[in-house]
């Protein structure tokens, strides 16, 4: 993980959030997974070689106040506000895991406001019968078991260095629960509206994801008109962490920003 960045504070339609802005190029909004922005800092740095990356802590995560938000619908409208507030024109919107769900919810609401959409091992839809679980229940695992499940090569369970870091982790966990406890990590009505996504869309999927399998990803892709689906080898649920370079290159190739900035 990169060193803790200094976060900027931004005002999004009257709501304060912490965010980082890195790099130059086509605007890219990155939506972090359910464990907060920190584990993605390396990926954000890598993307910033080709894009102007904006990445915020979702309301309730990190040190961004929750602003009374209750569900992913609030987050979707919040991020559409953010695109306007920060004047991100035709942005690439990249969301990982829980962030992918948020990105999909944005896209069904305003498909033409997004320039491109990249979903990385996104959760958010229900693909099987009511008595089947197609998203692993991340809330029913000890921290150690969760860590084992999500990675192909699990790093040590992150341990906070100080009380501030611990507060951020505790806030992330509580807020993810608030948004995604039940229905667990999905919106039963989302799949019904995915046909609205006319945005050029790429789904990247860890070939060894055990939270949402590649078959789940293929079902997701099939529901979005014209979406491309690409496996990332040798990675679990977070390929942007385990195969940062491969995922970044795939985003660059898809969003047309590769090779403009030397590595």
């Amino acid at each position, binding site marked *: 993980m990169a060193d803790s960045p200094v976060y900027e504070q931004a005002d999004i339609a009257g709501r304060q959030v912490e965010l980082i802005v890195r790099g130059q190029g086509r605007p890219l909004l990155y939506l972090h997974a359910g464990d907060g922005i920190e584990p993605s800092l390396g990926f954000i740095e890598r993307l910033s070689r080709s894009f102007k990356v904006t990445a915020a802590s979702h309301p309730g995560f990190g040190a961004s106040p929750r602003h009374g938000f209750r569900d992913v619908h609030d987050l979707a409208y919040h991020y559409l506000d953010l695109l306007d507030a920060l004047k991100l024109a035709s942005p690439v919107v990249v969301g990982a895991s829980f962030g992918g769900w948020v990105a999909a919810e944005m896209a069904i609401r305003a498909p033409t406001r997004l320039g491109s959409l990249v979903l990385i091992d996104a959760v958010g839809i229900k693909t099987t019968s009511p008595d089947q679980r197609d998203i692993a229940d991340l809330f029913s695992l000890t921290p150690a078991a969760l860590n084992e499940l999500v990675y192909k090569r699990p790093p040590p369970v992150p341990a*906070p260095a100080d009380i501030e870091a611990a507060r951020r982790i*505790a806030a992330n966990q509580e807020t993810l*629960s608030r948004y995604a*406890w039940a229905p667990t990590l999905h919106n039963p009505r989302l799949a019904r509206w995915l046909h609205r996504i006319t945005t050029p869309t790429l789904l990247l999927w860890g070939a060894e994801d055990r939270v949402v399998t590649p078959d789940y990803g293929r079902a997701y892709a099939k529901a979005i008109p014209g979406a491309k689906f690409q496996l990332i080898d040798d990675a679990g649920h977070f390929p942007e962490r385990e195969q940062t370079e491969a995922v970044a290159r795939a985003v660059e190739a898809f969003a047309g920003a590769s090779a403009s900035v030397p590595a």
Partner: protein
Amino acid sequence: MRIWYFTEQSYHPAWEEVKGPLRIHFPSSIMPRETVSGLLNRYLDEYMLADEMGLDLMINEHHQSLTCMSSANIVTMAILARQTKKARLLSLGVPMGNRMDPLRVAEELAMVDNISGGRVEFGFVKGTPWELYMSNSNPAGMMERFWEAHDVVLKAFATRDGPFSWEGEHFNYRHVNLIPPIYQYPHPPMWLPGSGTDTAKEAARRGYVIASMMTGTVARNTFAAYRKEYQAVHGRPAKSDRMGYFCLMVTADNHEEARRRAEKLYAYSINTPRSPAHTFNPPGYNTIEANAQALLAHTAGADPHAGGTFMDGRPIPPNPTLEMLPEAGKVFWGTPDEVVKQLTKFNDFVGGLGNFLCMTQGGYMGHEETADSIRLIAKEIYPQVRHLGEEVVEPAVEPAE
């Protein structure tokens, strides 16, 4: 002091057979229906005996657990409302943070209150962390939902001039008009379980009974915080009938038999932490600050009932002996005279206790020994402790946090 008899109505016959957690994951096929039916009826018989002997009754509720088959406490409440004649019936209670429909809770209680002729007492219970995995209620924001449910129920009880509508953050009702209305208008005596000073203060402000559950000597702090806040808000001292304490208590006419019973009963405490490891602390159940401190101290997910101190301040060792447990305020056991001494000492320690919630059937306690214990409690112990808690014993100073 009032004594409230309690059993958790466990399915203990399978505790040995099930090697892992006693909650959520085991197959219910291990429970033959004849055994289940027999036990549920036996527990009702014991409640009936406790009523005949002059004890009040407490009924609880848990879900998908071999430690408690009472999955709908209103069912037991309803039976006892009709079958008993004297006992106060304490529902402690309905886990309001988990229930989706507070109006239904109010309706059920109103029926039971009428059938019992106004003998219902009612506790608003937060619910255990592991049960959020069954109710699927969101642990984040649970207390907001809890208090909104509380307000719906209390307003439903207190409204006698036709329906009101409720359009809240968590609950939405077009018409709320309780038919039948509550018997004990505007509401039955109210209880709030908890051990933290914030909960104690909340209960004090509302004048509800605070119930400290199996917390041992922590109860002293809890009651001190309650008394201080009560005095500040209401301008008079809180009577000890506002204090409730729950733990195990068993007796016999000789020490050896009492010890044998205490060992069987204490199996409850040994087995009750057997929940799946991931269910101790669903995110949002505790505050962000508490969770942050636990993360830093590497104690997240630890059993909150472990540890503690004896009445003299010494730390309770891991796996305490039965002989240590009365001093820890966790199990009172012995001959009736021995138990009277233990209970009196605890009463004095906490500054006066008006309600003792007494788990006498639990663990592996069989029917005959439970019934014998109930009789001895009623005949030998109760007359000697009834006067306790009539006044505050010693000014209850709130010790340093």
